[in-house]
């Protein structure tokens, strides 16, 4: 049983509270990603879990035991740092074996353990090298090896991929996930990269200004963001947001009126939640993939810019008094200057109350 519980954890530096009462439970073997912009308190939270920062208030439990007052070494956690923090003068094997020095193992047992981890991470040929002689990705693996070999109750990652180039980051992302599948451990992973959060997490925790904005499975967060911040932060390209007004029509219908005068009918399935906002300004959001170019009676918009990416194309359209991004699949690619007809997936639209920045109808 190695559940990680953060119970009202806060952090203050002097009079300034930077993390405000975080409540979070990471179930055994769950992979939770803390994501948010820099300065949101996610790293501080992680460091409090590791014991590298003192906890100002609240309780931290690992495997059911309160560990607030234990030193990092006594918490049975392992951590992978952004810059890997490998011991420069030790070989790869010595780095990996460092966490074992207290366990009364014979040399053979220790070597075997190191070898097993090295095999798992495919770094066997590097065991005799010094960290200086390794590439970024290799260092990353060694850092993980050093954590894995201790077989800790909780695994902590502090932006482990941000020092890697894009290609390597993709590869390592996958590998960490694969590793977790093969050797599940309770894991708390911090990143500022929403893609990493979406792709890796069992559960994503979005933090902003020292608070948890929303926690949930990636698709839940993506589809049903609770706040404007979450809606904007998660998803790339970002959600399209338009200033709009909700108007009740004479025929009992509900309309979204955009800045450029476009009127969109709220589908029946979504009416229930937002009828009370009729007559009020709202922020209307649509994910790029919910804007489709399709001949029909939909609104017409000029194509202002096109980015082709192979499997998909991003089209930037003059729409709703601003510029909207549409993610197009398929081979038909519009050209700049084209006037195209749009079909909007209004069933999945996100409506935000501009006075509270909360998503209308969210739980």
């Amino acid at each position, binding site marked *: 049983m190695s559940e990680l519980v953060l119970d009202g954890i806060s952090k203050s530096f002097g009079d300034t509270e930077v993390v405000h009462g975080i409540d979070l439970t990471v179930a055994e073997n769950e992979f939770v990603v803390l994501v948010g912009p820099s300065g949101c308190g996610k790293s501080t939270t992680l460091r409090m879990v*590791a*014991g*590298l920062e003192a906890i100002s208030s609240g309780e931290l439990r690992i495997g059911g035991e309160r560990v607030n007052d234990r*030193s*990092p*070494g*006594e918490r049975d*956690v*392992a*951590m992978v*740092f*952004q*810059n890997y*923090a*490998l*011991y*420069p*003068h*030790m070989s790869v094997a010595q780095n990996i074996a*460092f*966490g074992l020095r*207290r366990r009364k193992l014979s040399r053979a047992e220790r070597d075997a353990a190191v070898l097993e981890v090295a095999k798992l991470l495919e770094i066997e040929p590097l065991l005799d*090298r*010094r960290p*200086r*002689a390794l590439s970024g990705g290799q260092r990353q693996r060694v850092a993980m090896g*050093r954590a894995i070999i*201790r077989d800790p109750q909780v695994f902590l990652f502090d932006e482990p991929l941000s020092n890697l180039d894009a290609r390597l980051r993709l590869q390592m992302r996958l590998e960490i996930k694969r590793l977790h599948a093969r050797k599940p451990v309770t894991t708390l992973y911090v990143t500022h990269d929403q893609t990493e959060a979406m792709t890796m997490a069992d559960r994503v925790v979005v933090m902003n200004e020292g608070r948890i904005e929303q926690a949930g499975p990636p698709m839940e967060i993506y589809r049903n963001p609770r706040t404007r911040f979450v809606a904007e932060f998660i998803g790339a390209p970002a959600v399209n947001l338009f200033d709009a007004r909700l108007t009740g029509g004479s025929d009992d219908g509900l309309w979204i009126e955009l800045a450029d005068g476009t009127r969109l009918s709220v589908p029946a399935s979504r009416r229930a939640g937002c009828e009370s906002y009729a007559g009020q300004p709202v922020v209307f959001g649509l994910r790029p993939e919910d804007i489709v170019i399709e001949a029909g009676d939909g609104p017409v918009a000029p194509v202002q810019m096109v980015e082709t990416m192979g499997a998909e194309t991003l089209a930037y359209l003059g729409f709703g008094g601003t510029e909207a991004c549409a993610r197009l699949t398929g081979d038909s690619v519009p050209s700049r200057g084209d006037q195209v007809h749009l079909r909007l997936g209004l069933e999945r639209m996100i409506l935000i109350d501009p006075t509270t920045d909360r998503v209308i109808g969210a739980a």
Partner: protein
Amino acid sequence: MTATSAPRRAAAPPATGGGPAPARPLPWLLPVLFFIGLFYLWPIIDALRLAFTDASLLDREANFSLDAIGAMLGSAALGTVLRNTAVFTLGSVFGQLLLGLAIALLVVRGERNNLRGMLVLRTLVLAAWVIPGIANGVIWQMLFSEAPFGAINSTLRLVGIPPVAWLSNPDNAMMSAIIATVWQGTAYSMILLYAALRSIDDTLYEAAAVDAATPWERLWFITLPELRGALLVNAILIVIMTLNTFDVIISLTGGGPGRATEVLALYAYNTVFYNFDLAGGSVLSILLMAISLTLAAIVAMFLPRSGRP
């Protein structure tokens, strides 16, 4: 520029255009070489030349002679002097490195914990360093004074410890000279090591903390290996400085009692200024330089080489 050369230049391929200047470093290095030659190399060469003469301060006519070398290396006192030099240098270097490291660790740790007064501490330690060696010797002579009113001994007596013969006992005198030198030189080590300590990546300590390393393990597995270069460079510099030290000793003990604290640098000084023996003093200076270079070379062999796995 003439009319004919201009078009040719314009027509030439831009082989050097925009890139670094052609590799001709000599004109740039000449002034430096000149001054190094004038102020460092020439005196060394001159000392080397004088070592092979019978030059004296009283007699400017110097003729080629090997007598000075024979007389100096064959001198009965040289053994004692070299032994004193070895003890003094070893004691001072280790003392300065250890104490400098200890204070640097203390300051860095204090700063990490936002303790007040760390700047004051650093400044205080540095203050010792800017005191001239002669004054340092005089200060310690007052502290070590064995008169009934001597500073340290009076204090010892107050707490019931019998007074110590700091300077009049030959063995203690060497220890006292080392203490005075270490006191002054520690600041130098401290500043060098402090800078090196500050440049150690903090996350290494965090990683070690997560790996449950004890403070000693952190010192042993992270701090010391990371400081290796700084420690060795420091050691080389202190070895050379200490070997050349005589100002502290001359004002603290004058080399005495007897010959108990007479080190090679002081011996060379005495040879020239008591004996007027310029040639002999030159031989001893060259010997001193040879010892410095040898020790420096030995220490340098342990320096970490960058770019090697």
